[in-house]
Structures are given as structure tokens and as C-alpha cells.
């Protein structure tokens, strides 16, 4: 059995629910949290490495709870030729991977912090954020 890497995205109403505990207690899954962005009253993301026989059942439970689950097989790349450094993505990015450096007001992208949620790909007006497989 090999572990699987997944990205969980959830709305602010879910932020105080201990869903990961239930994955461990009810589905006997071994979980390694690789990245987490969880704050009270805010939408959040988690990147997990999961191992266990009841993997599928665990994912089903998450989906029933309203958590959006994606496989972590993609990477987000910034096309530097297209990016104009406006910043329209920076308050949308849930993990802080896209941010503005001050005082220059340049937009920076730290791909180590990216949770591949695709939000920037959708909102970038210049299509500068690309999904690579």
C-alpha cells in the first residue's frame, strides 16, 4: 500500500470541525499534514499525505462534510511574461504563496507555499497563472 497526497479545501463554516480526528479515529488512516492553512472563520486548505485501507471511505466522509478534495498531481507556474504585477490574485490566494512585496509592490510567488487550489488560475485577468502536470 502506498500513501496518497491530496488537497482539501473547505469553507469558513468548516474551520472549527475536527474532521481530521475522525479520519484517524473512525477510518484508521495514517495522516501526515504537509501544509495547513486553517484559521477560525476563514476558508482553509490542507495538504495531506494519507495511508490506510479505508482511504476511499475516508474521502467519502470528507466530501459528505462539504470538503472539496483534489489529488496533488499538479503544479501551478507563473508565466512571468504575462504577469503584470497587479496583485489581483494576492488577496484570493488562500496560502499566502502569492503576495505583494512592499514597498516595491511587486507580486511574488512562493511555489513552496502553493496548495494548488487553482483560485489564482481562475481570477488572473491576464491568464498568467498556469497549471502544469
Amino acid at each position, binding site marked *: 500500500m502506498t500513501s496518497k497526497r491530496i488537497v482539501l479545501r473547505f469553507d*469558513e463554516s468548516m474551520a472549527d470541525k475536527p474532521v481530521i480526528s475522525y479520519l484517524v479515529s473512525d477510518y484508521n488512516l495514517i495522516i501526515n499534514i504537509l501544509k495547513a492553512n486553517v484559521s477560525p*472563520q*476563514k*476558508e482553509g486548505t490542507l495538504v495531506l499525505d494519507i495511508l490506510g485501507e479505508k482511504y476511499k471511505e475516508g474521502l467519502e466522509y470528507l466530501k459528505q462534510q462539504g470538503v472539496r478534495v483534489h489529488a496533488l498531481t499538479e503544479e501551478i507556474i507563473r508565466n512571468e511574461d504575462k504577469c*503584470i*504585477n*497587479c*496583485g*489581483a*490574485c*494576492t*488577496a*484570493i490566494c488562500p496560502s499566502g504563496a502569492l503576495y*505583494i512585496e*512592499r514597498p*516595491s*509592490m*511587486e507580486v511574488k510567488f512562493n511555489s513552496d507555499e502553493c496548495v494548488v487550489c487553482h*483560485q489564482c488560475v*481562475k*481570477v488572473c*485577468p*491576464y*491568464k498568467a497563472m498556469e497549471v502544469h502536470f
Partner: protein
Amino acid sequence: MPGEKSYEEINQKIKEGKAVVVTAEELISMVDEKGVTQTTQEVDVVTTGTFSPMCSSGAFLNIGHTIPKMKMNNIWLNDVPVYGGIAAVDAYIGAASVPENDPFNNNYPGEFKYGGGHVIHDLVARKSIHLEAEAYGTDCYPRRELETTITLDDINEATLFNPRNCYQSYNCAVNLTSETVYTYLGMLKPNMGNAHYATAGQLSPLLKDPYFKTIGVGTRIFLGGGIGYVAWNGTQHSPGFLLTGCNNEKKGPAGGTLSVLGDLKQMKPEWLLGTSVLGYGSTLTVGIGIPIPVLNEEICYYASVKDKDLYAPVIDYGEGYQKGKTDPIKIASFAELKSGKITINDKEVPTAPLTSYTKAKEIAVSLKEWIACGKFTLGQPSQLLPGPDNR
């Protein structure tokens, strides 16, 4: 008035390569250091810049006559509908025009991948554009159909003519509802999850001449990487000041706008970008830079106002804007907005710009270089625009 400079004097210095030109950012530091009086004596021209989506943009095209001749009625460029209700082969491509087969917001939020703004960019980038036209046919213009490809160099004239650009101050948008909304100010998360603002603040052209003392009909400007002109005031031009509190305290310039034009053929694709606003539509991001002649101390003073003294009204785009509720939730300074967060009702709200400050600065620097090397002289307005005191 003693110490006043004239356009003629400044243009003479520009031609001789002796004009002192600084960007609005540099002027701020100079005034801090030397005061307004000395800076006015030293500086001839201040350059400004902004690079932002500006939906009220488009271009008049004269496509050229075919043999046999045709009075083009319905016209498409790369499937984007173009207005053909002017003379035989004249047309107007609007930045917000979208192909008829686009899913629009039926697949909410719509992506609006390609529209009029993208066509204008592709024209300027010298790409081949697919042209289709239909006509009802007349005795003098018998042809009824045309399908061909054109480039910007093939057509007779192309004039970028934007009815409303370069907003002075603009709303900062938040969303007070519990659902995400997709607006022309971007995706707004529920319960004030983010705040989006526009304009380049202390670099922004119309924030630096709030009384419209220098910017008027015929002002020569940086437009789309080339040279353009102010044609008139923009539509919905609303010069004035943001007012706040029971004393109606003035909080910086309000909603002046410009109508601008220029020869599209000498513009640059990197300064006219096709833009897709999720859930909203297609538009054009336009680079504009305006030189402000330092004719006197008052003009110098206003051009040196900083982000901390320039403001934007924070408006609810969740449902308030739609209902015409224009009372601001807060009036935030550009210094606050640019810091990355503002506080509204004790809640810290992350802020993000839609205007590229780094590109605005590049425009102000380019314009400064053009003027300093004598390539660009000032256009004295033949008529000033309505300002706060003479609307």
C-alpha cells in the same frame, strides 16, 4: 503671477534638452526635502502613470474598400462583434465586446477568455485577425459578404478612442453578503474576506491635478506605449472631493475621468492588454501617463500629495452597489490600502490592487525619459476640463 512658468518656456527647455523632469514619486521626495517653493523653481514637468483595466475603451477602424465595394453592416473580428453602424468600411471595436457563442455567465462564473480587448491587443501585436462582414447591398456598395484576414498594417486607419479612462479615484470593493461575488473589481469573498482597489494612488494622473488646472483638451499623453491626446472629459466625469463626517471634510479627489485617443498603429502590445475578468467580461488594460507642467506652486503642491492623503471610498459590492447605495462603509487612504490590510468595524480585511503599481511606475519613468531627451513636448490644452469649481 511672479514665478509662473509658461508652456512655451517649458517646451523651449524640453527642445534644448534642459528641462528638469521627475516622476510623481520623485517629486514627493523633493518636496519633503526642499519644500514646495524651491521644488517649483527647480522642476519643469512631473510625470504620472497608471496601468489598469479600463472597460470604456475601443478603437475606430477604417478597414479599407473591397472590389466590388461593400457597405459593411455586421462585422466580426476573430468572431468578436464589431459595431458597423457608421460609414461603409468604418467600424468600432469595443473592449467589452464578446463573441456571440461565448458561454457568458451561463457557466457561472464565466471566463470570458477572448473579447474586444484581446482583439485590440492582437491587432497591435501585428497578429493576423480573421474578418467577417455582411451587408444588405446597395447600388453603390453591391458586395454582400466578405471573409478574409487582416493585420493592423493592412487597414487604412486605426484610432484608439476610449470614452472613459483614467479614473481619478475609484471605489474599493468589499462584499458584505455571505456568498462570493464576481465583479469588475474581481472576486470578492463573503463577509469582507478581501478588499480590492484600483488606481496607482500617488502616481495616478488625475489624483495629481485635482482641480484640472493643466489636463485638458489636447494634452499630449503616453497612451498604450505610444503618444496620445486627451480628447475631452470622460463620460461620467465627476470632479470633486470625497467628503466625510458631519463637517463634510474634504478627503482627496473624487471621480474625474478622461476621454483619450491616439493612433493605434504606433502603440505597443505590452501596454494594451486583453483582459478577462472572471464572471464579469472582457476588457482592455490600458497604460496611460500624463505629464503635469509645474507652472506654479499650487500645481507643484497638488502633484506632490502622498498616498496617505489620497483616498478611496470602500463600497459594498455584495448588494449595496447594485442597489445604488453609494455611502461608503469607510474612506481608506492609499497608504492603508497599499499596506495590505484595512480595518473595517474591527475586522482586518486583506487588500489587493487591480492596478499594477510597478507598471504605473514604468510608464512614469518612460514618459520622463521621452520628455528629458526632447522627444515629447507638452501639449497646451486648447480648453481645460470641468473641475470641482466649474462643473
